[in-house]
């Protein structure tokens, strides 16, 4: 089943996306943010939180004499001066000790002092990545579409129980949904958590608890079960850093979601998404972008071109951060009104279009949510048609829809039924996609062309206006965001000529190859 698509239009769209993000690159290069610095500090070994629960990373970065020089410089100076490791220094700072002014220490000295910790950080990330590769080789995870389910009880221990049960029921990927709007916190909570609304807090300890449980069940089942969380909101780089060292396998990580759907400042997001993706590139983590969010508030048929345009932009940003296509899980969702005649044909067109345009990407396909109702029987059927679309169009990451989507975060039984649903449909229609062809010039092909042309038109408008301007105008998801408005703007700062970030350097796309 192949769509005949206008390659010229596809190339044009890619060029436009490049033209859209490149101007932002300069800005990104000149700026850093508090969460970029906290990520650096965390990678250098600062993990815990103070008695008051405030993470040491936040304490340290807030205490920087001059953040424009970067946290690495200050830490390097402190190490050079005291000989103490970063963790100890952070505790001291939390206890009230001031940090030395880096400019007092010779550059060579402070860099030499920090170097071993930076190397250790990179070594740790590399080790975790090799560990994953070895596990995947020994415990193959099975064929795509990879069945992905969410756990969201709010209590990490219940989540662990649910995750293990889901894995036994056939889940290949488990995502821990975050507590309501953790995106808006300008720090990463600390420790194991048992309270959360609509989800469970993303904390390093919670990551560890889930990873250990999934590693155990992976061994038992003889197949590696992946773990997903969110590097999204105000702490993208830090979560990417934590995920790298706790061997998460995927992260929701979008270049514009925070701006559009969480009113996070756009400059903050641009800088944060870039550094977080550099880390992901190195740790081998697959990102999942959030195009599904465009469809939850607006009509899915109308928004299809916007989704495709966003996929091009996300791809462009990701490539420039050093992520290879096989780590770019572009998102899409099955959200067309189930009452629409031939709606299924539209879904097929859109899914197949993305599949052919982003041939190398592990596409992330999201289930019906908006049109799910309390009628769980009807909902189960809509999920079945979603499952059918996914197997016919070879989506890679398949987020299983829940028949109780409109009712509650998934019950353990709901997940089992969802996995049964996917397994049944994807088995009985396994090769349907290979065995049929789309009528040339038919409804499906015409719809695909319409979506692609629409995306090109959007990208042209954005390229012309410039990305920031376009967002200010409300080009995406009908929301207008001001360049200096939104949450977290105060955490963005211009780098001093002497700003130093050894990890950023080491992770730079060029270096990344090494």
């Amino acid at each position, binding site marked *: 089943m192949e769509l005949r698509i206008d390659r010229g239009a596809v190339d044009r769209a890619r060029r436009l996306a490049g033209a859209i993000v490149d101007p932002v690159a300069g800005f990104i290069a000149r700026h850093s943010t508090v969460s970029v610095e906290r990520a650096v500090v965390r990678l250098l070994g600062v993990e815990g939180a103070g008695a008051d629960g405030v993470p040491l990373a936040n304490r340290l970065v807030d205490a920087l004499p001059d953040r424009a020089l970067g946290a690495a410089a200050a830490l390097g100076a402190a190490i050079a001066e005291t000989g103490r490791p970063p963790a100890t220094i952070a505790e001291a700072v939390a206890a009230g000790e001031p940090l030395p002014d880096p400019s007092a220490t010779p550059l060579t000295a402070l860099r030499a002092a920090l170097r071993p910790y930076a190397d250790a950080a990179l070594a740790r990330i590399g080790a975790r990545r090799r560990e994953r590769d070895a596990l995947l080789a020994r415990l193959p995870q099975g064929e795509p579409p990879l069945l992905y389910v969410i756990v969201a009880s709010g209590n990490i221990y219940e989540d662990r129980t649910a995750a293990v*049960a889901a894995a036994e029921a056939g889940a290949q990927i488990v995502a821990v949904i975050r507590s309501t709007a953790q995106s808006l916190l300008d720090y990463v909570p600390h420790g194991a958590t048992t309270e959360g609304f*609509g989800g469970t807090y993303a904390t390093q300890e919670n990551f560890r608890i889930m990873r250990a449980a999934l590693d155990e069940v992976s061994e038992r089942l003889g197949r590696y079960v992946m773990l997903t969380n969110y590097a999204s909101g105000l702490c993208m780089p830090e979560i990417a850093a934590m995920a790298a060292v706790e061997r998460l396998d995927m992260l929701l990580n979008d270049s514009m979601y925070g701006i559009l759907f969480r009113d996070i400042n756009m400059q903050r997001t641009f800088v944060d998404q870039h550094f977080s993706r550099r880390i992901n590139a190195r740790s081998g983590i697959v990102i999942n972008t959030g195009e599904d969010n465009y469809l939850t508030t607006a009509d899915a048929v109308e928004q299809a071109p916007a989704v495709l345009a966003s996929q091009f932009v996300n791809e462009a940003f990701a490539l420039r951060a050093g992520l290879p296509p096989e780590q770019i899980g572009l998102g899409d969702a099955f959200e067309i009104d189930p009452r629409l005649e031939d709606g299924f044909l539209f879904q097929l067109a859109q899914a197949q279009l993305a599949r052919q345009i982003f041939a190398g990407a592990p596409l992330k396909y999201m289930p019906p949510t908006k049109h799910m109702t*309390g009628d769980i029987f009807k909902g189960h059927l809509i999920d079945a048609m979603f499952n059918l679309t996914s197997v016919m169009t070879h989506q890679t990451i398949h987020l299983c829809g829940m028949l109780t989507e409109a009712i509650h975060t998934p019950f353990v039984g709901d997940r089992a039924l969802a996995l049964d649903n996917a397994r049944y449909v994807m088995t009985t229609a396994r090769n349907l996609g290979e065995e049929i062809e789309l009528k040339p010039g038919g409804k499906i092909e015409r719809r695909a062309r319409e979506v692609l042309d629409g995306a090109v038109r959007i990208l042209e408008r954005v390229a012309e206006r410039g990305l920031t301007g376009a967002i200010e105008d409300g080009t995406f998801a009908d929301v207008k965001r001001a360049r200096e408005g939104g949450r977290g703007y105060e955490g963005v700062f211009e780098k001093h000529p002497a700003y130093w970030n050894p990890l950023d350097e080491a992770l730079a796309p060029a270096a990344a190859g090494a």
Partner: protein
Amino acid sequence: MTPVKPYGDTLNDGAVQLSFTLPVAWSEAADEAARQLAGKMGFTDVAVVEGRAIASNFSFFVVYARTPASIDVSAVHAPAAVRETLSIEQVDELIAKRVGRALKVVGACIGTDAHTVGIDAILNMKGYRGDYGLERYRGFEVFNLGSQIAVEDLVRFARERGADAILASQVVTQKGSDVANFTALAELLEAENAREDVLLIAGGPRMTNLLAAELGYDAGFGRGTLPGEVATFIARRAAERASA
């Protein structure tokens, strides 16, 4: 009317379908346990038609059974907030005639809830399922504060603007967060002796007019509400107040 029971294929056969999960490994005994459990729930003629392991320590069951429970529907009182809906023209005219000015309506998704689609469906020009939203009415001046609005901010705003009606939405209901937030809003208004000044309206997928009353609201609207219903309710009540 006489009490009725659930209907399978014969009047008052009491047929009910259940499904649930037990945190135990599956076995013949687990099936039997499910059967006995349904018995303890008060069901008779229990048939465990499906019982299987969904994980090493969880078993899922589908059960059909009969309930002795019955209910007289005619004795159940759950008046919808609005019987027959007025047209936009009728609403505007009613307000113009009886109130003589546009009514100030302040809406928000309160607490940490960011599900604005529902409240937007009621307020935005566009409306819902072909029924225009309150912004479309001449009779309403609409302030849609959007998502994640602390009740303090909502009340302050409403009082500053001298709102005639406050429309609060809650879509996330996990762990009773909706009831908690709705209650907080009502109590804050009471505390500030501002409750009488406004029509207080609650909405969300789990809301019913009955529940709203229990929470001290003037009305509640749930699944599939159309803007016109809300507009009609506000206009009628405002008209009554004006003439009172």
